[in-house]
């Protein structure tokens, strides 16, 4: 397998509203940031791939506006997934593995603020049997959390600890939307949002964008002092019907991690995309992450969860830690769909120092 690395990462701040900027205006500074980091112009990149959602943008072909901003002239080799940017990164990684490209620009963005996100996400559900009932994303996550509590795998206090740890970890993360938390015990005084979930168990709703640059082999070494080499990456999907899944488990995460080589050696850092606190409990168990692993030093989804970008940010944060020398082997995870339906796992490594 060809050596491919993440050589640059950038992100916008995640904000509850960004009415003053369009998607393109939100994205452009991030693109300039990552291209500037590697000293390349958009036209010098071999392949470009993005992730975004028309349903969030409220118009068909919304990604074309972003492409106009990228400046696809002269014409560029380019593709787009209607998925979180983590999967755009996956497509670009495969493109580099074929040898047809040496560099790739990957970006994604989402503005949830114009709509009611939990209601919008009901449109992801089976359109015949489930979507007509409009079950919102918080209610579905509450079913999952309750199943986990009923199984004896967690309790509301442990969930509050997940939220508090994430938001306190984000205290130094200037891109985060929600930082610092009251102590877990105090969080439990808040009323339920949808039992057993309280507000702190749910991710903040925010607008944001992220971008990375990928490069292969010696090109990566030239563009980055310590490239974050992608040692393995895989993604898997589960059944859509919640009734046929064991919501306390995430077999797709486990399988993707196995295929990505996550269990071949211990990791020292993990960035998990767990929008709801109970999902972090599930993911940690499937990924066998013990207390020795630094978990979500960025704060993770409890601190910022921009739709379509939050998964790519997990890969970017893990890569940035390797770039800085803060870690040597990191796991990054992204999720999509209701109750962790689809999951991606990447294993990143820095070369020995």
């Amino acid at each position: 397998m060809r050596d491919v690395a993440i050589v640059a990462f950038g992100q916008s701040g995640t904000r509850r509203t960004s009415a003053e900027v369009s998607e393109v205006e939100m994205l452009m500074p991030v693109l300039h940031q990552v291209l500037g980091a590697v000293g390349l112009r958009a036209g010098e990149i071999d392949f470009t791939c993005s992730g975004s959602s028309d349903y969030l943008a409220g118009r068909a072909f919304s990604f074309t506006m972003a492409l106009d901003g990228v400046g696809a002239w002269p014409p560029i080799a380019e593709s787009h997934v209607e998925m979180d940017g983590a999967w755009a990164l996956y497509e670009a990684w495969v493109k580099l593995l074929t040898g047809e490209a040496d560099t790739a620009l990957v970006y994604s963005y989402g503005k949830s603020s114009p709509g009611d996100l939990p209601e919008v996400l009901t449109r992801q559900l089976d359109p015949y049997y489930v979507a007509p009932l409009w079950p919102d994303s918080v209610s579905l996550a509450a079913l999952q959390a309750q199943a986990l509590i009923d199984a004896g795998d967690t309790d509301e206090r442990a969930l509050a600890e997940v939220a508090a740890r994430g938001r306190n970890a984000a205290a130094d993360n200037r891109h985060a939307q929600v930082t610092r938390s009251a102590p877990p015990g105090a969080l439990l005084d808040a009323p339920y949002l949808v039992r057993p979930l309280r507000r702190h168990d749910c991710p903040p709703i925010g607008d944001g964008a992220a971008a990375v640059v990928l490069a292969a082999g010696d090109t990566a070494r030239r563009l980055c002092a310590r490239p974050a080499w992608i040692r393995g990456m895989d993604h898997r999907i589960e059944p859509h019907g919640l009734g046929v899944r064991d919501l306390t488990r995430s077999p797709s995460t486990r399988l993707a991690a196995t295929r990505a080589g996550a269990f071949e050696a211990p990791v020292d850092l993990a960035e998990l995309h767990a929008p709801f606190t109970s999902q972090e409990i599930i993911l940690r168990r499937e990924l066998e992450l013990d207390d020795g692993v630094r978990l979500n030093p960025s704060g993770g989804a409890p601190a910022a969860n921009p739709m379509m970008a939050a998964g790519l940010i997990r890969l970017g944060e893990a890569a940035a830690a390797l770039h800085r020398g803060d870690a040597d082997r990191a796991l990054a995870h992204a999720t999509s769909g209701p109750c962790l339906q689809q999951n991606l796992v990447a294993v990143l490594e820095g070369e020995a120092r």
Partner: protein
Amino acid sequence: MSKEPVAVVGIGQTKHTAARRDVSIAGLVREAAVRALEDAELTWADIDAVVIGKAPDFFEGVMMPELYLADALGAVGKPMLRVHTAGSVGGSTALVAANLVAARVHRTVLTLAFEKQSESNAMWGLSLPVPFQQPLLAGAGGFFAPHVRAYMRRTGAPPAIGALVAYKDRRNALLNPYAHLHEQDLTLEKVQSSPMLWDPIRYSETCPSSDGACAMVLTDRTGASRAPRPPAWMHGGAMRSEPTLFAGKDCVSPRAGRDCAADVYRQAGITDPRREIDAIEMYVPFSWYEPMWLENLGFAAEGEGWKLTESGVTEIGGDLPVNPSGGVLSTNPIGASGMLRFAEAALQVRGRAGEHQVEGVRTALGHAYGGGSQFFAMWVVGAAPPST
């Protein structure tokens, strides 16, 4: 490191109609997927990954429908990718799937594209609201008609050319049992006297709005060696994009299309496409796009494309048949239309196109475009495996 050669060993498509009320969205995609598996004599267990594509989610009113379709497409426990690159998406989706095999990430991949346009009104779905687009552009026809007029003015093409293309493609569709439009009584006069929709594009020179899906099974050399029927081999594939509108854009012959064609010809070792390519399935949603793309893709010199059409070269018995399947003018489930072009090109080199088979096709081009003539996806397939 050399790429793994990619073979098409299974192709399936639905019967396309204005409204497939007999099936759900899941039923529609499964119909195409099952036919592709049957063609390859494979089962769901033989598929390592699924790559699905479609145009805007608003067409069915389902956000990221691949999540809901995972079960119907046997994707549970497997990787599933969802591509969306506007009208070119069916082609792009096939190319993303092909890369998984070429990079040796997977051995055998199911790729599928669909649209169930009867769930909404595609014309208005394509008419962007203010402030994204100036008002009074009703549907894609309103967007592309000025480009057609520019082509006519630039080349001096006689006004009758468009009707010739429409008449040819609709006649070809009579040979294709899956095609949406089967207009047994159509005459050239009827095409020429059909209502004017967007001058100069008449009703009969316009693609229909269809429900339909198309699927292909792509595999490596080992998979191809076990295939029960002749595979189509991929000799080149490429995507190119350019901005929607900008000063200096050539809307008649976009550079992204020319660059994309040049890339696939280079990969396939083709230096004279007019001589070396035996059949073309190109994305012609409005009749005039046949001569326009013939020039853009290098089959005719600039200003000469319409002469190929006029002289019958592009007819099914001609020297360079274009859209023997009936093309987009006869069947247009938008998200699937690009993959149908890729799949029909593959059917031609496999000799499995049925009544619309062109004799002796060894090399064929599949072409898709989308957006404001800005997204292009193409592949060249051959009856023989690639030499390198």
